[in-house]
């Protein structure tokens, strides 16, 4: 199984990239993060109010922050390289102005409508692109941005064609006109920016942030804990679309003159630069990025409009020299100074403690005395082209059973698990849970009905802590909706606390308490396997499918797994166990199915099955 070990190491290689700052360790929840942004805004406003040029810069920077935060949300957190954000920004600007001029709407109403329009547009782009990888998504969204600009440029009333729109009305607030470029408008912008910063902080620290990072690092993990990656994606698109629209609205009323040309490719390049330079995926990335870009812009003004030169060199240096941008560099520096540098952590050893059974957190799957639940696979068939990987296989598992699934490599064991959890298409046969069919369901729906699984190479989110990795599953189970989570309602706080306690309890059961706040990326293989099992238990499954849980583990870790399987069975959870370790299989399983070339060649109690010659032949070659 060395290949799977290698694969998982590659998955978790330190992310030395321009993207993916990660940066959720040390989740900011303390008061400096709440009052910090408003203080900065007030200080900037007071400092610049006397000087027209500085005030202009401060307002422009504040608006750029909103736009950059919007791209940071979708790309930095969600990992979606959505280049159409630039036209979303422009659309927000033109829509609000058009509504005010054409329908004589107030600024405030027009702003709300413009945000709805841009959010809707953003979601619309998300729908057809859901299956694309990031490069194709970049191409499609860029093509969309240019196409929409082309259409808009032909709509004279809306964009003023090549001339642009003049005489943009200024917002009025209880009789005071907030005219772009004057201090009053700065304060309007400052309020909006303060709200956006607070929104970003809440997203960052809540389950929404966890889900977005999971979407970026491993969409399959999301599905395997019952969260729909598709709806998480739409949320990212919608929210960032609305934020880009808000930036556009502010920009239009700040400039008082807008033309489509402003929202061009160069502006997009500047936005990418600011996001990545600041630190994609970091809460404070956009702040640093906007400041850095402002410095670069001032420099290029000084050196005769060499903006392309400065940006071009900037991008190249960024790609080559930085990981996590400015925010990432600061985080590393802080870690170094405080002595909390990240390094690979050792494997679990006994340290005198015995492997503990799970106590605190797992609930009984079936009420004692009640009827058992049953997962039944009948005549299941999976084919890849002409190859039949699973050929008319029938197995049945009841809650409380531990069923082994063994067979040589390539026998179809993992494919069978994939078929049960809706990961591959089934060509024939039936698949039922308590009599209801699971066929054609998406993985997240299968999980929600009580069938959890682990993967052959553990799939966890490297940039989240172990605790957060478990909490993702809790979010799916009983999580408050994203609105509640962002609003930080009492209910969402209570759920968050409960989820957290439960996750900590489970980590304790797996002897992982001391590492709860360490990032998964630094953990050895065996720990990740345990985390994956623990994450499944967060979901209170009725059935759990374990794909080679013992492979590549240390002695102690394997005992931990064996103890877990025993207690799962005591808790009346049905277990399907795929493994090559005969000791584990014989000691843990009530029944064993032997697969060879996609077919079941034997089934029964372990001792009986292993005595048969066909099984020996499949495993060891012919014995006779």
């Amino acid at each position, binding site marked *: 199984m060395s290949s799977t070990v290698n694969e998982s190491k590659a998955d978790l*290689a330190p992310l*030395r*990239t*321009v*993207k993916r700052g990660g940066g959720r360790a040390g989740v900011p929840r303390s008061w400096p993060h709440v009052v910090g942004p408003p203080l900065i805004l007030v200080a900037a406003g007071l400092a610049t109010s006397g000087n027209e040029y500085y005030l202009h810069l401060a307002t422009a920077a504040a608006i750029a922050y909103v736009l950059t935060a919007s791209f940071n949300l979708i790309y930095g957190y969600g990992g979606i*390289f959505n280049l159409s954000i630039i036209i979303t920004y422009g659309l927000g600007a033109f829509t609000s102005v058009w509504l005010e001029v054409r329908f004589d709407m107030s600024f405030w109403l027009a702003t709300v409508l413009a945000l709805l329009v841009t959010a809707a547009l953003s979601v619309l782009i998300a729908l*057809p*692109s859901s*299956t*694309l990888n*990031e*490069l*194709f998504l*970049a*191409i*499609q969204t*860029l*093509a*969309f941005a*240019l*196409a929409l*600009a*082309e*259409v808009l440029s*032909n709509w004279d009333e809306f964009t003023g064609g090549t001339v642009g729109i003049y005489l943009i009305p200024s917002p009025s607030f209880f009789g005071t006109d907030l005219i772009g470029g004057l201090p009053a408008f700065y304060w309007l912008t400052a309020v909006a920016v303060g709200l956006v910063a607070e929104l970003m902080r809440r997203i960052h620290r809540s389950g929404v942030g966890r889900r977005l990072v999971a979407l970026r690092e491993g969409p399959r993990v999301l599905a395997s804990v019952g969260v729909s990656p598709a709806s998480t994606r739409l949320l990212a698109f919608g929210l960032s679309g609305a934020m880009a629209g808000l930036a556009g609205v502010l920009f239009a009323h700040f400039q008082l003159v807008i033309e489509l040309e402003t929202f*061009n*490719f160069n502006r997009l*390049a500047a936005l*990418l630069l600011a996001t*990545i330079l600041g630190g994609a995926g970091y809460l404070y990335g956009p702040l640093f990025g906007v400041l850095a870009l402002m410095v670069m812009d001032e420099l290029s003004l000084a050196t005769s409009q*060499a903006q*392309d*030169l400065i*940006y*071009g*060199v*900037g*991008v*190249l240096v*960024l*790609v*080559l020299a930085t990981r996590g941008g400015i925010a990432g560099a600061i985080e590393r520096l802080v870690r170094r100074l405080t002595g909390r540098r990240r390094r690979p952590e050792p494997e679990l050893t006994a340290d005198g403690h015995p492997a503990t059974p799970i106590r605190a957190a797992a609930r009984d799957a079936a009420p004692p005395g009640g009827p058992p639940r049953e997962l039944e696979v009948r005549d299941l068939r999976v084919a890849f082209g002409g190859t039949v990987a699973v050929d008319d296989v029938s197995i049945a598992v009841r809650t409380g059973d531990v069923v082994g699934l063994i067979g040589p490599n390539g026998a179809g064991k993992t494919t069978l698990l994939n078929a049960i959890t809706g990961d591959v298409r089934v060509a024939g046969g039936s698949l039922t849970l308590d009599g209801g069919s699971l066929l054609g369901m998406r993985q997240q729906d299968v999980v929600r009905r009580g069938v959890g699984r682990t993967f052959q190479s553990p799939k966890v989110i490297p940039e989240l802590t172990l605790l957060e990795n478990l909490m993702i599953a809790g979010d799916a189970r009983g999580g408050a909706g994203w609105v509640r989570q962002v609003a930080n309602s009492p209910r969402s706080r209570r759920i968050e606390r409960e989820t957290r306690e439960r996750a900590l309890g489970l980590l304790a059961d797996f002897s992982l308490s001391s590492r709860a706040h360490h990032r998964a990326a630094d953990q050895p293989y065996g720990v990740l396997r345990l985390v994956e099992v623990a994450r499944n238990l967060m979901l209170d499954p009725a059935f759990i499918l374990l794909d080679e849980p013992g492979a590549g583990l240390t002695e102690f870790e394997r005992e931990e797994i064996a103890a877990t399987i025993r207690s799962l069975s005591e808790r009346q959870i049905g277990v399907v166990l795929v493994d090559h370790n005969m000791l584990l299989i014989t000691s843990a399983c009530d029944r064993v199915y032997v697969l060879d070339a996609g077919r079941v060649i034997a089934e029964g109690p372990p001792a009986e099955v292993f005595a048969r010659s066909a099984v020996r032949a499949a495993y060891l070659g012919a014995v006779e």
Partner: protein
Amino acid sequence: MISLAITALSTTAVLVPLVISVSLLFRVSGVVNFGTGGFCVFAGAACATWSASNAFTGVVLTLLAGAVLGGLCYLVAIYPAQRQGVPAIGLTLATLGVGLLLTFLTRTWFGGEPSIVQPWLSGSVTIGDYQTARQRLLVIVLAALLVGLLYLLFDRTLIGRALTAVAHDPELASMYGIRARRFEILAWVVSGVCVIIGGMFQATLASVSVDVAPTLLVYALVGAVIGGLGSLFGAVGGALIAGIGMTLTDEYIQTGYHLTALFVILSLVLVVRPQGLFTFRGTAERV
């Protein structure tokens, strides 16, 4: 009818080298070249300036510049990043940076105005009752020749085999004694020359300016994706579909909606056949 066909073919002829260039780099280095637009505009402006006295020297110089720029782009931006393990999206960003630098060079060396390269063949011909510039036909013929040449290079020589091997798995290729790095540079040089040819074609038929760089970029990217990234056949097919689509939109729907037409075609292709319209078993593996 004949006029439509000629227009569609000449649009295609401009796109073909661009799409091949994008497609080749994707195949060999896994990079989508976001600097394509910058390269094109540089080519048009350079050729216009350097051809002022003698068209032939101008073209040769521009082609050389394309080869050098392609190679430089790889050595300066891509190779060091690859060594650091930067993922595909980061490399793509690096090409965007190169594009910006080229735009800067174009502005400072040749000025930012639209540049027009004088047609290599002057005058016009009449086919039936349709009159068209000789240059237009020349460009179509040259594009066809280019495709033929690249076909011979990539499909009929050991160089092509080696390149396919490198594209597939550079490590394995070097174990068999292929100097993977050299072949990757070769791919970038060829790609640089191709994109420069596309830029010159465009500048002889219409004009290029720094403002159209993003538009040319999207033409090339969309053409590559709808044909299927990675094969010569797919690249030509994609360019043809894009060319026909834009011409028909101009003729039957409304002029000035090229990008919209391309976006619609792209979206349809991505829904119906995301691997590209001209990707089949066997062709997909070729450069």
